[in-house]
């Protein structure tokens, strides 16, 4: 049988520029390029190309261009090239199609249909270069009231554990194994340096990183990889991972090839074995089970840190979030449809879940209506691409946002969606030491810091324009938003007026 699926990308090589240095040959883990000594030519096997553009970026003479090569079959709005291609691959393999990164389908991106407000006349806009502009955010459970000593005026109320971040942008959970050691180091370093948080993901946390513990969220997921008391005690926050936006209802599978000795040691499993995360947590089959785990983690760590719960944005997210808060969650993270993944069944990634914008608005509203919004902070995750998305998320009701994909892009990722192959040419979503050394952790740290700095500056500009000088005054402040091109029901769910109204 011939290989049905044609090349998705074509490599254009301008031979007059090529100096036969073979950088492309050495860089491509998919072995697209090869050198033919007989003809002294560098050639390509286009059908292997994933469009990561590593060779193009590193070619010293700009001899290469990688171009998308759409399957130009007879146009058909129903049977599109993607379907044909998937059918061909399944006919050849008989398996579940895997993919990486977030949902790439054209579901409505609500961020792009929301516009921000600015002050004119009746209240002055504020120039963030001249005036203070505060982005500090304190995450954790807040009481309904504060009590002070009547005579001395001392604050009597002891708050539950809180954690402070200097930006509303937090690095999302990506496991060690899904992404590389160096990528983790860079994320952890950048979080500490900027005063925000890094999330270990579910693959454990290398012990030598625990010095960054004050800036770390330690995840407790269904596989319970790498969890011991030191892991929990070293972190600033503990997060119970129930679900992930890219694959709600689905567990995880780190293939044996990616389980190198250091990954194995960190996960506390034998090297070279598959690391399987069950779909549910097998000690959580109900909300009361979740409450027990929350309490167990709090008890184990002396109530010294907030315990959060991360759920995928699914149809009844508001009720689930409410239950989680009542079960004791100090932070609720909601991961939307476009959240990333190292590996997920394509059919699940592309068809399950809700856009974060709608889920976030619904969850915030529900917690306000129940009078418990202050009992937990809300983190919004899944497809945050820019500082404007951050501002809109906070105006919809988030305390802060998680970024995963955006941080990876800052480290070099070009979203080729091949994370699941273990061959990431950019050295990010891979554990092979030959590839991981491509990420210089110090340079990657600097890029991440630049990203946070740039977004912070932009957020301040937008806030100042609205006449707001403290981020808490934007939270759930939907009068600062107007919808464009949205239907009535969408405006209603978002709690936003249409533009001009």
């Amino acid at each position, binding site marked *: 049988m011939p290989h049905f699926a044609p090349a998705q990308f074509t490599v254009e090589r301008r031979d007059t520029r090529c100096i036969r240095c073979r950088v492309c040959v050495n860089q491509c883990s998919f072995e697209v390029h090869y050198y033919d000594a007989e003809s002294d030519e560098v050639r390509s096997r286009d059908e292997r190309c994933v469009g990561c553009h590593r060779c193009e970026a590193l070619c010293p003479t700009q001899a290469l261009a990688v171009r998308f090569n759409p399957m130009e079959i007879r146009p058909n709005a129903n049977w599109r090239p993607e379907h044909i291609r998937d059918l061909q691959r399944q006919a050849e393999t008989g398996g579940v199609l895997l993919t990486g990164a977030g949902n790439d389908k054209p579901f409505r991106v609500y961020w792009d249909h929301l516009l921000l407000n600015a002050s004119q006349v009746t209240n002055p806009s504020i120039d963030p270069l001249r005036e203070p502009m505060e982005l500090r955010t304190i995450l954790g459970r807040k009481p309904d009231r504060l009590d*002070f000593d009547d005579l001395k005026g001392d*604050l009597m*109320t002891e708050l539950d554990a809180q954690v402070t971040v200097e930006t509303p942008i937090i690095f999302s959970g990506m496991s060690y194994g899904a992404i590389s050691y160096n990528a983790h180091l860079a994320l952890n370093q950048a979080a500490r340096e900027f005063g925000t948080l890094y999330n270990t993901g579910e693959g454990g946390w290398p012990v030598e990183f625990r010095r960054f513990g004050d800036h770390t969220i330690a995840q407790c997921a269904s596989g319970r990889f790498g969890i011991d008391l030191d892991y929990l005690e070293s972190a600033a926050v503990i997060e119970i991972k129930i679900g992930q936006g890219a694959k709600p209802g689905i567990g995880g599978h780190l293939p044996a090839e990616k389980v190198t000795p250091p990954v194995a040691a960190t996960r506390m499993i034998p090297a070279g074995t598959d690391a399987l995360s069950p779909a549910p947590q097998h000690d959580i089959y109900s909300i009361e089970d979740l409450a027990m785990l929350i309490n167990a983690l709090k008890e184990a760590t002396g109530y010294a840190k907030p315990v959060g719960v991360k759920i995928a944005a699914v149809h009844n997210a508001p009720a689930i979030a409410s239950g989680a808060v009542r079960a004791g969650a100090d932070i609720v993270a909601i991961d939307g449809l476009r959240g990333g993944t190292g590996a997920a069944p394509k059919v699940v990634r592309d068809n399950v879940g809700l856009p974060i914008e709608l889920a976030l608005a619904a969850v915030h509203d529900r917690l306000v209506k129940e009078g418990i919004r*202050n009992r937990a902070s809300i983190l919004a995750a899944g497809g945050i691409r820019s500082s404007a998305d951050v501002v809109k998320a906070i105006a919809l009701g988030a305390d802060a946002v998680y970024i995963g994909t955006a941080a990876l892009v800052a480290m070099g990722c070009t979203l080729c969606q091949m994370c699941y192959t273990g061959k990431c040419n950019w050295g990010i979503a891979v554990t092979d030491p030959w590839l991981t050394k491509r990420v210089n952790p110090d340079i990657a740290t600097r890029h991440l810091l630049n990203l946070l700095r740039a977004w912070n500056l932009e957020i301040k500009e937008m806030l100042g324009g609205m*006449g*707001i000088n403290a981020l808490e*005054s934007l939270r759930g402040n939907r009068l600062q938003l107007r919808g464009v091109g949205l239907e009535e029901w969408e405006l209603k769910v978002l709690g936003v007026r249409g533009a001009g109204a």
Partner: protein
Amino acid sequence: MTSLARLQNPYGDGKLIESCGLFGMMDTTGRPLRGRDIIRAMANMHDRGNGLGAGFAAYGIYPEFRQEYAFHLMFEHEEARRQTEAFLRNNFKVVHHEGIPHRAVAEIDGPPMLRRYFLRVEKGVARAGHDDYVVGKVMAINAEIDGAYVFSSGKDMGVFKGVGYPEDIGRFYGLDDYEGYLWVGHSRFPTNTPGWWGGAHPFSILDWTVVHNGELSSYDTNRWFLEMYGYTCTMQTDTEVLAYGVDLLARRQRLPVETVASVFAPPLWETIDRMGERERRRHTTLRAVFGGLLMNGPFTIIVAHHDEMIGLADRIRLRPLVAARRGDLVYLSSEESAIRLISPKLDATWSPDGGQPVVARLKAAAAEAVGGNA
């Protein structure tokens, strides 16, 4: 509440925007002051309003009904009055009621029916619950009786307001004839409403009144935070969230006014970070817990209740506030000229920093004499 929203906000704006002039004066020994001075002071700031709303609150004006809740009410029509009076009779003992005296003033057009009721909470409601009971009834009248609106509901105090310039409203109600130890005045410059009597300031619940100049960019955040505590913001005004914020923090949670000021206009984090351990913990906790009540954007407010008058400007001081003292008299004003007009010789005048409340308190002996906040 649809009828109120319609009257208050005919264009259906997300919230109402207005700017204003405000004035407060208090004799801290409890000596009565006539209304004449505050009317002159407000008239001096005529241009801070646009004739679409003005009002006054006066404390200590009903010594003969010191123990009764004094309800000032406006009715759009006779039916509203009939329903309200039935409601009041069902829920209170009506000790006395009468029209609020007023005179014809050429500049004041078509006033609504204005009446006052002196009410006692019937036995059967625990004394500690009287205030909450009254708040519930006020909300019910405003929300459920079409055409009725409660201006004020405190003891030994009252709100007099309407559509017009402050000097005309003052003459309309004959405020020269009232004597009170604490007066607050307001003149309004709404940008989007034709003016409705209930929409003028002061806003009041129980004996708390708020007058306000400014626009809160944080309005919608403040709104949902208050909704979490059971308040319903139907008026779409910044003043409403300020008033409910005061009610929540000062009355329900019994926080001292200085603490309420720290919530509304907190110090900057860079200032908090430099504080000693005790103050740092206090301010950090207040911001963490009550960040939803940070009043962000330009504002000056005067909050008053029996025994106390508080002036506060926003944290970066975007709206004017001048304070002055002469002997036992304390003044707060949008403009110093208004104070100088009625009290040319002052012991001190100053412009308080943003977030730093000016608090005038009735001296202890006077508090007893006036009867205070029962």
